[in-house]
């Protein structure tokens, strides 16, 4: 078991290094760099000293150095906890991400809890009452959720919230709490705003999960051990939950790992952009567009780490719940 863990962590480290290098290289690929964009902007404004300013910045950020040297500088500083500086914000990357990390985590947890708390019972109901009107309704809604992108749903909800109900749905705080110090009222305000993005992400996430849960459970309900459990005189509810759902839910654990952990870093960026949420997602998308490489690179590395951690946690969880795949 310990050997297995060490091996998995070892592979994960190699993977992180490879991903960081490749992503760094890919961000470099488009012609020019952040400063060429900046020069264009300054020129357009008619700023004469643009060239000179840019030269000093180029020296400051080390953009004149060759690619490999820059990568190694960044990577070795990364290990010391210095993720570099964002060109765009002219502040350390750690500061920018740190400020947004808390909200991203809260949103990710809220979304996950909501998604799973809704998806599993709905999927189970759908399978147990196959072809009933309830099942049909759930299927229709989950296909809509599967088919509709989250940002579109966000736009629709925003429209109705603002035009019909006169509600404020963007952001995570009301304006009066935006810069206020933390207090009970501010937490309540956060909770009041949190449910909308959480619900939007949940609706789009539920669709797939409901279908997977339904399909798995239908397969499992046809298994001989379910009939055998019924023949022992167990209640239908016990048979369904203790014997069938217990088996059918296993594949979802893998999804949990590869889905939830990365969303702690980036989440659903497009929904966040539409709803103007102070999470990492919008910053990440923006940094890619603006070739803000240290910010983008840091996001990607953390995303990779989270995905790897998520997979490892999912595998360990799976081994915990299913004796068949436990390592002897």
């Amino acid at each position, binding site marked *: 078991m310990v050997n297995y863990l060490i091996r998995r962590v070892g592979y994960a480290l190699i993977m992180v290094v490879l991903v960081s290098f490749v992503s760094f290289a890919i961000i470099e690929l488009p012609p020019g760099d952040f400063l060429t964009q900046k020069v264009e902007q300054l020129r357009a404004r008619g700023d004469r000293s643009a060239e000179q300013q840019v030269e000093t910045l180029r020296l400051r950020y080390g953009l004149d150095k060759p690619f490999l040297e820059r990568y190694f500088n960044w990577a070795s500083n990364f290990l010391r906890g210095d993720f570099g500086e964002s060109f765009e914000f002219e502040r350390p990357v750690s500061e920018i991400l740190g400020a947004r990390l808390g909200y991203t985590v809260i949103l990710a947890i809220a979304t996950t809890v909501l998604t799973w708390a809704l998806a599993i019972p709905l999927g189970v109901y759908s399978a147990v009452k196959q072809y009933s009107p309830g099942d049909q309704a759930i299927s229709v809604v989950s296909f809509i959720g599967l088919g509709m992108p989250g940002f579109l749903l966000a736009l629709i909800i925003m429209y109705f919230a603002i035009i019909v109900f006169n509600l404020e749905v963007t952001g995570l705080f009301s304006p009066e709490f935006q810069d206020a110090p933390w207090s009970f009222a501010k937490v309540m305000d956060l909770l009041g705003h949190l449910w909308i993005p959480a619900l939007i992400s949940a609706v789009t996430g539920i669709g797939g999960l409901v279908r997977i849960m339904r399909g798995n459970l239908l397969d499992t309900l046809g*298994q*001989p*051990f379910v*009939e*055998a*459990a*019924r*023949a*022992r*005189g*167990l*209640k*239908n509810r016990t048979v369904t939950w203790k*014997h069938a759902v*217990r*088996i059918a839910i296993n594949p979802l654990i893998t999804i949990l790992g590869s889905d939830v952990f990365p969303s702690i870093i980036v989440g659903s960026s497009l929904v966040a952009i539409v709803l103007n949420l102070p999470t990492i997602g919008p910053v990440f998308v923006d940094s890619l567009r603006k070739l803000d490489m240290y910010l983008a690179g840091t996001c990607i590395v953390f995303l990779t780490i989270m995905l790897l951690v998520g997979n490892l946690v999912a595998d360990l969880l799976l081994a915990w*719940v*299913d*004796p*068949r795949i436990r390592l002897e």
Partner: protein
Amino acid sequence: MQINPSPTPTAQAPAGPATDTRETLIEVRDLKVEFNIRGGVVKAVDGLTFDIKRGQTVGIIGESGCGKSVTARAILRMIPKPGKITGGNILYHRRRRLAGHQTAPAETNVIDLTTVDPDGETIRQIRGGEIAMIFQEPMSSLTPVYTAGTHINEAVTLHRLLPVKTLGDQMADKIMQYRHVTREEARDIAVQMLRRVGIPKPEQRVDSYPHQLSGGQRQRVMIAIALSTEPAMLIADEPTTALDVSIEAQILDIMRDLQRTANMAIMFITHNLGVIASMADEIVVMYMGKQVERAGVVDLFYNPKHPYTKALLQSVPKLGPKTGQRLASIEGMVPDPLHLPTGCVFHPRCPAFMPGKCDQIVPRWAEAAPNHWARCLLYEE
């Protein structure tokens, strides 16, 4: 561990094909089960009538799809979805023990299983507790994430009752009081049951997961689960079909042994004539949902009446000197269950086919010889 005294002295009558002195446990009367599927109605069981007595083994034989398994599931009210009981009765002579109540052992009441709620409390007490079932697929009949012990505990804590005290010893019938088992007792029972079905090192095996057991061991665990509640009847639905022959023999030995000690009835479903000959007292032969013959085992094997039974018996390969003859097989194919032949369903394949009769007249269920019933026009006037 104390084992409950066997109910009444009459139940221990000597086993034999023609003993009718034992008390009736199950009476199936003109049972009909239909599956309403897209192409029409399949009569999976059509007019089945037989009795099972306490301690008796009744074999049900027939080809795949003849309605054997559906019959078993009808008794437990577990017919898979589009299937429905559309006629007949299943009378169960229930003699039960109740936790916390005082029960005289001979108290028997008759309930019709076709009318009970298939999800209700009554049938759930009967399932596993009074009528237990073991299945064809031992490899997948245990839930993969629970140990053998967990499975047995589940049945035992639901159904098994232990005697607390005996009241009125002087009376003709002892009045017993029972209670449910505790968690520790359930585990003891689990270990004890695993030992009884011949699983080595039961104290360790009780904590084994299904994937750590072989197919034969899993079927032994299934038998241990079924018998741990001391049921009045065991339904064995092709329990050895998926096992190899040496394991099959061991499993059958265990079942015979346990039946003798527990005075339990067995409804043994199989298509293996060799197995049924060694197990059953009485045999019901089914073909396309209909019962074509019923007789004691010796009578049936030495003096079969129905042409289908005769053909079935001839198609069993025999050991012995080479005769040069080809192995007999039954002519033709099993008919489409949606379009059954008119008259006797077996007439297109029957060697004794009488044109103008068999394809027009539906044969009645009639006694062809004393205590030997058949559904064939050869035995009708």
